[in-house]
């Protein structure tokens, strides 16, 4: 029987328990990645428990408390609306993680299905699908995202769509090349010979065996998606006020308030950077662990 993790399950062979063995060997071999994973887990926990962790309401404005420097009551100061910066950063992690996970998950799933289907059907279908993907790849990531925002407008959901669209063709191309190899495997040929339906061959036989590149692409795009959301929000083309988002918090920080409130410029930037670093390092480790030969540009 094929396990969902078919392509890389053999790596766990010999480990004590087949269920947790892969985790143990990952932690041992990829220490940096494991540490990043721990940081991300902590971050997810903070995001989940935001109402308990945050000292203030992130949306509560106050004209009396505008642009206050850091103090014991407001450890990171307050913004131009008198809102607590620390609380907004804590709640902002929800936006970042929501957008990051949903875009890279949906994007890599769609890309994987398209890539596998394209490889399976081959011929004209494959050619057409690949040409369309190539054309989408001619758009720089952020430019395509901006174009989608121009059509759909701003807001969390629209930003998720805008970031997912450019991820799909990038995943599809990488997964297709792996799927082409899987297509020639004896077990896929056997399934074809048995008269299995396209659906069955794709879902049951090919998909589980391209999980490694698919997972690699998913983790590779997590950090990028979070960075892209922050950039869009910073430009005013992403998440809209008053939703707490890190990129949005930096809007005006470099110009309007830079002399009066330099603290506004530091904390959100550190939050974005550390999150993206953690996700990038985790992504690199997952890639090294699953397939050292695959390069993700």
């Amino acid at each position, binding site marked *: 029987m094929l396990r969902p993790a078919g392509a890389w399950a053999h790596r766990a062979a010999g480990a004590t328990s087949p269920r947790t063995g892969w985790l143990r060997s990952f932690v041992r071999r990829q220490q940096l990645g494991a540490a990043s994973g721990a940081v991300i887990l902590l971050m997810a926990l903070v995001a989940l428990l935001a109402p308990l962790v945050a000292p203030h309401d992130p949306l509560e404005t106050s004209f009396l408390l505008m642009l206050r420097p850091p103090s014991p009551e407001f450890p990171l100061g307050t913004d131009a609306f008198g809102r607590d910066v620390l609380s907004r950063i804590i709640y902002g992690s929800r936006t970042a993680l929501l957008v990051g996970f949903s875009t890279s998950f949906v994007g890599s799933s769609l890309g994987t299905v398209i890539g596998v289907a394209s490889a399976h059907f081959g011929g004209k279908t494959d050619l057409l699908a690949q*040409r*369309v993907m*190539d*054309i*989408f790849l*001619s*758009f*720089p*990531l*952020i*430019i*395509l995202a*901006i*174009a*989608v*925002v*121009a*059509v759909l407008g701003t807001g969390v959901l629209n930003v998720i769509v805008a970031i997912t669209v450019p991820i799909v063709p990038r995943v599809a191309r990488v997964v297709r090349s792996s799927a082409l190899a899987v297509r020639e495997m004896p077990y896929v040929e056997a399934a074809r010979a048995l008269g299995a339906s396209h659906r069955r061959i794709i879902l049951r036989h090919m998909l589980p065996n391209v999980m490694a590149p698919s997972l690699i692409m998913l983790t590779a795009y997590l*950090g990028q998606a979070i*960075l892209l959301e*922050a*950039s869009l929000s*910073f*430009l*005013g*083309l992403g998440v809209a006020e008053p939703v707490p988002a890190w*990129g949005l918090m*930096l809007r005006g*920080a*470099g*110009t309007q308030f*830079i*002399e009066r409130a*330099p603290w506004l*410029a*530091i904390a*959100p*930037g550190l939050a*974005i*950077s550390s999150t*993206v*670093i953690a996700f*990038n*390092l985790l992504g690199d480790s997952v890639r090294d662990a699953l397939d050292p030969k695959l390069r993700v*540009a």
Partner: protein
Amino acid sequence: MRRYIVQRILLTIPTLLGVATIIFVLMRVVPGDIVLLRYAGEGAFVTQETIVQERARLGLDQPLWRQFADWIWGAAQLDFGTSMWTGRPIVSEVALRFELSLQLAVMAVIIAALVAVPLGVLSAIKAGTSVDYLIRVFSILGLALPSFWVGIVLILLLLSVFHWSPPVTFTPLRVDLGENLSQLIWPALVVGYRYSAVATRMTRSAMLEVLREDYIRTARSKGLKESVVMVRHALRNALLPVITVFGLEFAFLLGGLVVTEQVFNLNGIGKLTVEAVVRRDYTMVQALVLLMASVFVLVNFLVDMAYAWLDPRIRFR
């Protein structure tokens, strides 16, 4: 070589056509249409007559195939119609801002090359040492730090150290070279740093690979100076993949321009794009997206040419 160039040009044309088609489709899946959406966004009362007029002016009352043909034909002649915001021809609006963005891009590319190649080589030569480690951290940070934040922090530093803040007006190159460079060097550094990150990593790994080759050992054993071995024998061969990376990463340079122009208040193509989206100037957005995608396609074409020129094996494949 000529046959290869012709082949590559012929491959570029359908790609550009496809890009224009996708933009056309994208702008037509707008709920309602762009005229309605634009006026709805303004909140003012608009008569039905104005809407019909505006639709006619933009050619939206024509059948779809006609609109598509006009769009492609216009784009081929660099005629994108007029801006829905200013009413002026889009080509002249873009031309006004093109110089600044082009100069910024060129400066960023130079900075990126000056950072990436020496650091990558040094990192490879000193592989495993603390120098290597530092350079790798530097390039990892380049990938992870949002360039708009690097820009903001840079402005903060410049402000507190030199009391310098981004000027309100831009001085063109022809007017005052010194003033112009002092304005653009900081944003160019920000964009160039991001651009150099992947290239540094690529230079390092390409150098490491090349340094293991037999001909390097041969060069050393015949008593050549180490610097000659590194530059003439190793670097020359390691640069090929680096050039490819520069082409692929050009997308990030364009993205970097969009964001950095906003931070440094530079009135270039990037800022124009953001403003066009905010103002719902759809004709402008579609022209700018097409422009940037075309530039990206063109740069990759040039990179392929450079690659073929540097590595004769490619052309004969």
